[in-house]
């Protein structure tokens, strides 16, 4: 199981939680499992999210591997200028 930290305003889509656990080994699996377990998160996942894995921010990268001890933080999709 991987612990995933959500940003605060996602708690309405995750039964009031800002930290959830899902079974996932990759970025893609994590997004799929989150959307399945918490359908309220699906609209935001569809619009786009970034993922911080042990402090490194990934904007896509489905196959990025996630270890059971990894720090995983879901973030809005990053944009720049």
């Amino acid at each position, binding site marked *: 199981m991987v612990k995933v930290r959500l*940003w605060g305003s996602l708690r309405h889509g995750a039964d009031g939680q800002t930290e959830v656990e899902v079974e996932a080994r990759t970025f893609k699996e994590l997004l799929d499992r989150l959307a399945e377990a918490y359908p309220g998160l699906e*609209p935001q996942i569809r619009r786009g999210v970034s993922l*911080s894995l042990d*402090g*490194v921010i990934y904007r896509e990268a489905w196959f*990025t591997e996630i270890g059971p001890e990894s720090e995983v*933080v879901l973030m809005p999709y990053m944009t*720049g*200028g």
Partner: protein
Amino acid sequence: MSLDEYTRREFKQVGTRVRRPDGVDKVTGRAMYGADATAPGMLVGRILRSPHAHARVKGIDTSAAEALKGVKAIITGADLPAQEDEFIRDVQDNCMARDKALYDGHAVAAVAATDAATAKAALKLIKVDYEVLPHVTDVDAAIQPGAPVVQSGRTLENVPAGMSENVTSHSEFGHGDPAEGFARADMILERSYRTAATHQGYIEPHACLASYASDGKADLWCCTQGQFNVRTLCAAIMEMEASQLRVTASEIGGGFGGKTTVFIEPVALALSRKAGRPVKIVMTRDEVFRATGPTVHTSTDVKIGMTKDGRITAAEATLRYSGGAFPCGTVDMGAQAAFAAYDLDHVRTYGWNVMTNRPKEAAYRAPGAPQSIYAVEATLDELCQHFGLDPLDVRLKNAAKKGTKSSYGPTFPDIGLTATLEAAKAHPHYSAPLKDGQGRGISCGFWFNFGGNTCVSLNVNTDGTVGITEGNPDIGGSRASISLMAAEELGIPYDRIRTIVADTSSLGYNDVTDGSRVTFAVGLATIKAARDAIGKMCGRAARIWGIDPEAVEWKDGATVPAGPNAGKFPPMTLAEIAAVSAETGGPIAGHHEVNADGAGVSFGVHIVDVEVDRDTGATKVLRYTVFQDAGKAVHPSYVEGQMQGGAVQGIGWALNEEYIYGKDGRLQNPGFLDYRVPVASDLPPIDAVILEIPNPGHPYGVRGVGETGIVPPLAAITNAVCRSAGVRLHELPMSPPRVLKALAG
């Protein structure tokens, strides 16, 4: 991407100040900008824009304009398809209004004619039947229940019920329990701030030439920060396949984020398709201001608790951003960035996006961060004044470092904030004496930096030179930096490499030149493309020598046997291998494609001295020093230029630049006479101090540098003005009338 890309090395070429490859073209006028494109039979395109801030378009009669001799095509929103995808629909509707004009300057029709005078005359003959609607151009007014609704049905699921329909999204970040932290503070300071919308202020107006052929293929030349993104957007709007639309980016006269989308390109394509001839559109400066994207305008509340020895016990901010007449996610970036510089146990930020009858926001350097960090850094400074603490010491005491849980969630890996603060404190500027009436301000800044989709080809020519094809318009010196990194890796002189920016049919997809990504991501791909080519050259040498490829290595621009057991062979240089490439297997090239991550966040610290003229309210910037962690500075002159440019744009934002709307909702100052950007005579020399703390996510330790520099000036100057004038302003810009008002109490 991992954090083990970086290997410490002694650089031979990276880090030198080589001649810029675009210099001669730009100083002699040979460089081709967007407006320089021409084609046989080309028509002139012009756009009719709404004079109303908010109006229903009940009908458009183009018959008289169509009858004018020389008019070849007219389009309105009805000529563009209905779009299912919300993002594409917003981009399209911003290029050409459909049923409502949403801001002063919103396009409602366009003409292609044989010459500019005819096109202009035709615009006057188009009759638009408007039903003028109530408008709202201020974020604090637009968030109120009962405010005129800009667009209905755009509110996301994360917005609580009962709010104005102009509120489109809400976000919240942070950790801990702020109430608990505030209870431990010796003082809690709450302040509210406002920042005006500012324009990126690029000197080159948007320009494009579209040529749509009768067989459905099209070519588009334009000034843009991303030709591949232009292709994606235009192909969707024109219902074309990507392969049938080739987009070529011109040289670019500034972008700063404002050229990361399209405004006129789909219009030119639609006119060209209808007319059957090439169509060129060049915006006027008035159009650039009224109809392209400035940054958000904002209203922010900040609350910070501090102990008397300068430790922050809790922090909160509520951000209200408006990105104009369409939903906009910039507030999320601002809310994440607001307290990123600090190691806080209790922190919370709340973001609200609010629609107003203003042009659709476009990115502007570190979008969202300057505004929120301004509010935080100004509040922090006021607390330092209250307790009589040194503002740099307080920032050092609270600085985020490796292992800090950031205010936006992740735990920081190695970061350079403390080193940057220490460099600022040790610099002579910080201890230099000030005269009476002068004030010194400081501020931290932060930006995320990104990588992204990148594709590079590197071709070894038979004469021993190298051509590199990359897909990102060169805004800040990327061709020089890319050539330098390839030269370093290949071990050949910089002058033997030429890097060009390819069109969309010549290379795989590349993300836009934004997010401070190009030197990082394209550089990474270039280094790996060079390594790919080196591997092939080692293979060729191995076959020539009759030994295993593993027994050959690359050293100082040549293949050599790897150790005494590999045999004795004289080195073969890149030129010698290239010269016989036809005989040894054909052309030699290296490629690399990646969606790069691991860009690494960046911090900066600015120190500024100012003097406020108490009679006129004008602020003179006397001295300015920028400190920034650049990772490895590939070409230090360009890095300094980025840091100086960010500071200058921030100075303009702090002191003068603002979109001013009248009661009628129309923009009052759409020109550089009334929208005042800093000019050379306003500015002292800006000293740039580069800190080189390697980014572990890049082979050479490179970080992005393009955006962080615009973040600190807003608060640094606010804090300096306060210490000079003795009054603290909470709204930008601190224009002379606003300063005089504050001085008058």
